[in-house]
């Protein structure tokens, strides 16, 4: 077990080294961060001075070694642009992203679960067929385009056409309140309103996934003997669905949601761009455009840790739930 965890962590370290080296080389190739930030009036001498103060005058491999050395000691560098620790900048933005992902998960579950179960209960009905075709749309339509269309419909078209139709906020984050030192917009009406469209966009893909999962599980469970027995006992349909079907669905849904959480954080980059949501994905894109290398690298490090931990947790959970799964064998 311990060997397994250590092995996974070493793997994560390897990925970090590869990724950070790639970003170092990449940004070095794209252009000169100093040219992006310095006043165009600056002379060559002043440019060189800035390069030296940011450590950009050294050969690339030396810059990279300096980074690795500092990173080992927990220092991931300061943002070129803001002069503040890159990690700090990212952590400041993280709550916005996490609350977006969380809210979209809630929406996906609230919509996807009932639809999926319904489709599983009445597979031949028109409703079920519509739902399943709809889920294909949910899979297919690119996230960013869905976001644009939602903006067009709910923030432009409907309010323009129907007098009195509320114009849904299409961008930015609403009012926030301080919860245990973290700024959250989940608890204000304005905040929820601002969350609605971006969260809906993000929820579409996940909702489609949940629909299919719920339908498949429902169809697997319904023919089982104990369900038939329960029916024979005269239990109401509601109770059968509520107790037997939902109970069985919850396990795969929870797993998928756990794994998909990481995907959602990644996809939030797009949603945040469309809706100008001030999360860490937006920060990543802005930093990429400005060649703010320390922030890009720090973001990647966080994501790598995030994913490794998530995968590790799922694996560990499985080994606890199902003793037949031996971690060592999965690792090879």
């Amino acid at each position: 077990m311990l060997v397994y965890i250590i092995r996974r962590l070493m793997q994560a370290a390897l990925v970090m080294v590869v990724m950070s080296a790639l970003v170092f080389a990449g940004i070095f190739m794209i252009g000169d961060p100093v040219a992006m930030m310095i006043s165009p009036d600056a002379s060559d001498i002043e440019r060189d001075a800035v390069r030296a103060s940011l450590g950009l005058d050294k050969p690339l491999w030396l810059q990279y070694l300096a980074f690795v050395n500092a990173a080992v000691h927990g220092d991931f560098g300061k943002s070129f642009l803001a002069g503040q620790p890159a990690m700090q900048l990212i952590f400041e933005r993280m709550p916005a992203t996490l609350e977006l992902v969380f809210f979209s998960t809630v929406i996906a579950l609230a919509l996807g679960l009932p639809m999926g179960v319904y489709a599983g209960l009445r597979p031949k009905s028109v409703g079920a067929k519509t739902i399943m075709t709809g889920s294909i749309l949910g899979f297919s339509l690119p996230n960013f385009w869905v976001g644009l269309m939602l903006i067009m419909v709910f923030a432009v078209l409907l309010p323009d056409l129907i007098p009195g139709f509320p114009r849904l906020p299409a961008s930015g984050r609403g009012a926030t309140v301080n919860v245990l030192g973290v700024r959250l917009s989940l608890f204000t009406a304005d905040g929820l309103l601002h969350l609605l469209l971006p969260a809906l966009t993000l929820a579409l893909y996940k909702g489609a996934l949940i629909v299919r999962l719920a339908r498949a599980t429902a169809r697997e469970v319904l023919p089982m003997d104990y369900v038939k027995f329960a029916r024979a006992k005269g239990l109401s349909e509601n109770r059968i669905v509520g107790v037997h079907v939902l109970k069985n669905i919850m396990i795969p849904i929870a797993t998928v949601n756990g794994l998909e959480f990481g995907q959602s954080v990644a996809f939030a980059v797009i949603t945040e761009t469309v809706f100008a949501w001030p999360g860490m994905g937006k920060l990543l894109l802005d930093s990429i455009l400005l060649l703010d290398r320390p922030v890009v690298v720090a973001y990647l490090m966080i994501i790598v840790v995030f994913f490794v931990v998530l995968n590790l947790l799922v694996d560990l959970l499985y080994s606890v739930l199902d003793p037949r799964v031996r971690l060592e064998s999965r690792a090879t």
Partner: protein
Amino acid sequence: MVGFGRKAAAFAAALAFSTTALVLPVAAQELKIGIKTEPSALDPQFHTLNPNIQVGAYFFDALIAQDAELKTQPALALSWKAVDDTTWEFKLRPNVKFHDGSDFTAEDVVFTYERIPKVPNSPGPYTIYTRSMKSFEIVDPLTLRIHTNGPAPLLPLDVAALPILSKKAMAGPAPEGKTTAELNSGNGLVGTGPFKFVEWQRGSKIVGERNDAYWGPKPYWKTVILRPLSNNTTRVAALLSGDVDMIEDPPTTDLAKLKNDPKITLAKAISNRVIYIALDQHGEPPIGIPDTNGKNPLMDKRVREALSIAIDRKGIDDKIMEGIAVPAGDLLPYPMGGTRKDTPVDPYDPAKAKKLLEEAGYPKGFSITLGAPNGRYINDLKLAQAVASMWTRIGVKTDVDANAPPVFFKNRDSFKYGAYLAGWGASTGELGNALKSLAATPDRVKGMGTTNSGRHSNKEMDAKLEEALVTIDDAKREALLADASKILMAEHGLIAIHFEVSVWALRKGLTYPGRADQSTFAVDVKPAK
């Protein structure tokens, strides 16, 4: 589905709540501004970035201010004069208090200027404004002399870019006193400016409060809140929904709609930024012109003129810029320093352009690549594409090579373009700055032609410019600059397209005079009479 129904009800409630919240009157004397770019720091000596400079002016004053047309005006200095060729003397304003109540003296000024080179990790150091300063001499608490390395006629403009910090409030263990991080959190952020610092939530808002002891005209607003809304669509939406009272730089695509909105007024000011095209004139073989057998057509003045008059500046300004640009025939608009009132703008004349090409020996035209940044200037890519289509029509087949700004800069600085479209905003508000950077024969050591990647060179113009740069007398210097610019424009050394017009959109009932440097200053925002 029960869960969904309940959810929908909750949202409907939230909707109803927020729509009522929107119609509530805005808190009196509070001004909320949607700004385009968030400053990278509140330390006014960290980064020479427009948003930083702009926010700095809320909390700090410099010795000299620049008015809406970038002319110098007394601020913390009442008057200044050149004592001799290398000494400037400043008489400071008496009875000025910092936000913490302490007195403003020459000591603070010297501390401020001496801190600049000590600020670590600055991505855009303010040393560009102190490079001509050799030493400081405090004659008395309200008289300061600055000795310069050589004649420095533009020193007052340098000084105008340097907000004054409080020596007392800035005391700290670091070599620079209070660090940038400390200033960002408000620690030591004590100036003499019209607003006192309240808080900065990065990514969300900067809050200031009126300085009731301000030496100048007091701001109307008790509280001012700057909200960074970088996305164009977002910024407009925030204004329309009443989230903010005014926004900077509404996108051109929305101008028509805003103009017709009865709840909105627009403020405009011609800016100091010129959009121009530089043409590669370094010699032969040409760059990115494959079909002239190694000849560089851009060396021929007639070809350059043809390319200039092939551009329908009026059409561009109407269709692409939606009227927020003014056709340019110079590098700065009149009446900024060194400009001429009667500067001609090259007229649109494609027939003559074709004839000029023929005379120059290119009856069939040639092919060229026009480099451009994508997302640096207003509509930069669209402009490049429009120019390309106009050039193609006179026979100069043009490809646009548009790239993200960092890639564009890299290509430009390594001379990859035969022609490139770019912009320049002369922060000094006088032509010397633009001519020196964009048109002077490149000389890295002297700092001439640092952004002249077209490598145009004209000795006659260089001579006029160099003389102007060491002439202390304002009128004489401006005449020399006007001559230099006349030579450049007659040679079509580069093609000026237009000056951007800065636009602000405000809630009806507010006025803003606008500024040539595109800054948004809450002090100048007032309720309409």
